[in-house]
């Protein structure tokens, strides 16, 4: 892709017991320990107000940690202001300078990095090529579409060959179709150049699609971190299960544990699955809508309360002694009618046991 003019100096990021307190007692980030490996794309995911953007801004140096240590590479940057850190950031609003052309925007950071004018120019043009904006260099940001502006913002950050590249909800101003394409572009560039990227979003699908690793945050702390598959298939608790993808949370009883395998009971229906270290007693079962089997011979009695046709599949709301669950089914040709009495069971893989809250 690139003619090797843009290379990577990717470095790991490490947070050691970092806290950020605003004012007197608003704790935005509480004693966070975090390690981002060099060359990986790590996503900070969480509901608004969970501290993910503050964490990102602390990496950038736009917020200063109240306590703890932040390291980029081997260097302690805790007290270093943004100007002196080798980090660049793509903003949610892109923050393109409206009075400069696309090329001037991309050259902006290079001129402060000690490059001569010609060198800065050729690097900037390479950067624009890389994001597919060849020939747009003389335009003003206002003459570009949203997606193009987004790519200018990426190019502007990329050409500095930062140790860490930060994205603050970069796709939230794009429409749904463009979003998918741009996120694939970002992921491709990141993997081609081997960049360390920290990425903030509140869209779990986006996070699952682009990340090497996801950090789910809640109330200023990490709820769980792991690969997308780990988080989706084996959430630690109800919060993570519910936040990543949709999950039905059912109360159940673990009747026996045999080695790693537990047997659970819901309304008299028994099911075997990994125990994940839980002892017998009450627990929660998390089941993705697609992992529910509907209309099986055996299973938990349930009533179809609602049936919705959404084109590619059917969506059902089922009620019963367990409460209410949401299920999807691929068979759109013979849908169940509302009011039908059926039985439901669980797929072999997928459902996981969670501790009782």
């Amino acid at each position, binding site marked *: 892709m690139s003619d090797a003019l843009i290379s990577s100096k990717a470095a790991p990021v490490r947070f050691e017991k970092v806290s950020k307190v605003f004012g007197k007692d608003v704790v935005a980030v509480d004693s966070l320990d975090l390690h981002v490996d060099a060359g990986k794309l790590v996503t900070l995911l969480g509901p608004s107000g969970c501290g993910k953007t503050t964490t990102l801004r602390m990496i950038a140096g736009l917020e200063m940690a109240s306590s703890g240590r932040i390291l980029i590479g081997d260097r302690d940057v805790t007290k270093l202001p*943004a100007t002196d850190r080798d980090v660049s950031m793509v903003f949610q609003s892109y923050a393109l*300078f409206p009075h400069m052309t696309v090329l001037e925007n991309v050259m902006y950071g290079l001129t402060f990095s000690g490059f001569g004018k010609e060198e800065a120019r050729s690097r900037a043009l390479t950067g624009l090529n890389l994001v597919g904006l060849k020939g747009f260099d003389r335009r*003003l940001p206002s003459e570009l579409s*949203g997606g193009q502006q987004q790519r200018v913002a990426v190019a502007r950050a990329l050409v*500095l060959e930062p140790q860490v590249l930060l994205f603050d909800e970069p796709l939230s101003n794009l429409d749904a179709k463009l979003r998918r394409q741009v996120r694939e572009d970002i992921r491709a560039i990141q993997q081609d150049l081997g960049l360390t990227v920290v990425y903030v979003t509140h869209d779990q699908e986006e996070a699952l699609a682009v990340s090497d690793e996801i950090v789910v945050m809640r109330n200023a702390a990490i709820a769980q971190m792991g690969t997308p598959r780990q988080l989706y298939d084996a959430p630690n608790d109800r919060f993570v299960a519910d936040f990543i993808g949709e999950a039905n949370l059912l109360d159940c009883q673990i009747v026996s544990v045999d080695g790693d395998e537990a047997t659970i009971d819901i309304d008299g229906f028994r099911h075997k699955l990994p125990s994940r270290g839980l002892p017998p007693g009450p627990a929660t079962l998390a089941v993705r809508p697609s992992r529910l089997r509907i209309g099986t011979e055996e299973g938990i009695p349930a009533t179809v309360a609602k049936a919705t046709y959404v084109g590619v599949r059917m969506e059902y709301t089922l009620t019963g002694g367990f409460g209410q669950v949401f299920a999807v089914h691929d068979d759109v040709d013979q849908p169940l009618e509302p009011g039908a009495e059926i039985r439901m069971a669980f797929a072999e893989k997928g459902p996981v046991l969670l501790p009782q809250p």
Partner: protein
Amino acid sequence: MKNVQEKTTHPVLIFWIIAGWVGFCLLPWYMVDGGLWSFEWLFDGYPFDDDYAPGLFLIAQGEKIWLAPLLVPLALPLLVLRRAKSDPLYARVLILAGALGFGYLIAQGFSIGIRGFNFDWLKALFGEPRIRQFGMGYGAMICAASFLFLLTQGVAARGAINGDVFVVSAIGGVITIVTAFVFFPIAKMLFAAFITEDGAYSISIFASKFFDDRLWGLGCFAGARCGAAWNSLFLAVLVGIITTVIGLCFALAVTRSSFRYKRAIRALTVLPIITPPFVIGLALILLFGLSGSITVFFADLFGIQPTRWLYGMPGVLIAQTLAFTPIAFLVLIGVVEGVSPSMEEAAQTLRANRWQTFRTVSLPLMRPGLANAFLLGFIESMADFGNPLVLGGNFDVLSTEIFFAIVGAQYDQGRAAVLAMVLLFFTLSAFYAQRAWLGKKSYTTVTGKGDAGVHPLMPKGLAVPVMAVALGWALFTAVVYVMIIYGSVVELWGVDNSLTFKHYVTAFSVRIEEEGIRWTGAAWDSFWTTIMIAAIAAPLTAAVGLVTAYLLTRQSFAGKNAFEFGTMLSFAIPGTVIGVSYILAFNVPPIEITGTGVILVISFIFRNMPVGVRAGIASMSQLDKSLDESSLTLGANSWQTFRRVILPLLRPAILAALVYSFVRAMTAISAVIFLVSARYDMATSYIIGRVENNDYGLAIAYSTTLIFVMLAAVGLLQLLVGRVQIGRRTQRGMETTK
């Protein structure tokens, strides 16, 4: 491409160290004759002549040996030149050097004046030596600046504001100049109120001046005269109420009536900007004075003797109402438009009729704006100097009393100071009330979301009186301005009404001779001085204002609220008070600038600074903060960000601040009249002088010229800003243009 190794060269530090040494070794330490722009000293005995010698030469000649200790703080920073910024020693040495140097410079400046030591205990300690010094000049100023910025660099190196040198220095610089040119003179003035004739301090002298009958007397209830304080207060309250009511009428007429010529009414808002404050008074004299047209007309009609009813309270009241109504209008139009139409539409769909809607929804939502307009009118009336001077007669108000206490036969600095304190107390109370009021209530309901509704028309019963007042007053204003122009081309008003350009010729005649143009008119001197001073003051005002605005909107630091209050304070300090305090403070070393052009420039900078700050804040808060942040993450420091991102985007605000401070410098009178000198006379004080000599023709012709000059300036501004806005893209990456 950042060097991970910490930098050990500090260009900014080197610059200020060199500046300090240059100031100390090369430039004349004391103020040279002929002001800052005269370079005669270069060829006149420099560097050995006492008057022009740099500090180092003075010491070498054994002259002002008390300057010698300054060499220590000048040399100290050289020790840490090669150290890294994070080295604690670096910060400590710079702070020490800066604080020592700056502190010592100020201490020696205040302790040794024209007549030797200023303090008795120093005399006791060192005896009465034959030493004296003059006001600080280039050398001392640059030295002081160097020490100040050494100090701020030290503070920044210790980690204040993330170690940002530019921001710390800007804060330090603004605080220093505001302290020196706002707080110091005011404090000096407050002290002057306690000084007896032989120079001792006394409470009783203050009390006797403070409880003077001429200040607080209530004789007017018994047919005699009231004290100036009561007069001022009464007048200000009346002006506040009347301008608010009329301003509201205008605002309603523009937004909520089907009146067709709304744009013409909007043009009113330009008037107070371009009109020197006393011009209205002059026009009123032409209309209602002893030989005024209307007076004469009615005298002939009814066969009654013309009276001098205009001179005194009625005249000042009318003039101020005319002058300040547009200000109230300006405030209220924003408020009246700010009331969300959907609120009013909601009220109407809830079955309130138009009158009920107005009374229960629109008016209550405007209430804070009304208070704001009232307080502005109050402050402006209190501070007004020109109109009472022209029309006051026997009606004493504080601002003119202050003037006469200083320049009149009584020459009583103490009394002027006491009067100024009373005036300051009134305006500051109003200022404080305004801020307290506005701080608590949000007075607009505009949310930034599109609001498609339309303001309902006023109910009939309200529309008729409102329109009557608005149109009547607009007509009156128009007549007054026509009179100004007409009056300037009349031979001698009321006596010889033939038309002539005589006054313009007297004021602005030019002769073209062999060696070029000769400015023979009487007004040229003051005219060019005014243009020059205003042109120098305008960019400085804009710069100080915008840097302050940047600090207030973009940075957070301890004591920011106090900082903002301090910078906005000079808005509430009447010009007369500034004038008096400047005379008292800057007549003696260390800052000795009375009678120069510098004092005029400085007084304009600090009188008009709040305008620049407001303009800067308004447009800076529209720039998304992510622009700064992205610039910072791209490796620019905050100075580079300010210069390359913020300033270019603020072009319209800069232009507005420039032109506005230029124009205000041209119309100002209240502070100026204390500070002008034979050499630096300003247009406004020249005109007032003409008025006092009953030379109305020339005064009005000059005023008219000023109005047109300023109209041209404002027009040019609107043209430029209009064009800039077309070129400036409004997007901030938010919209998608496909």
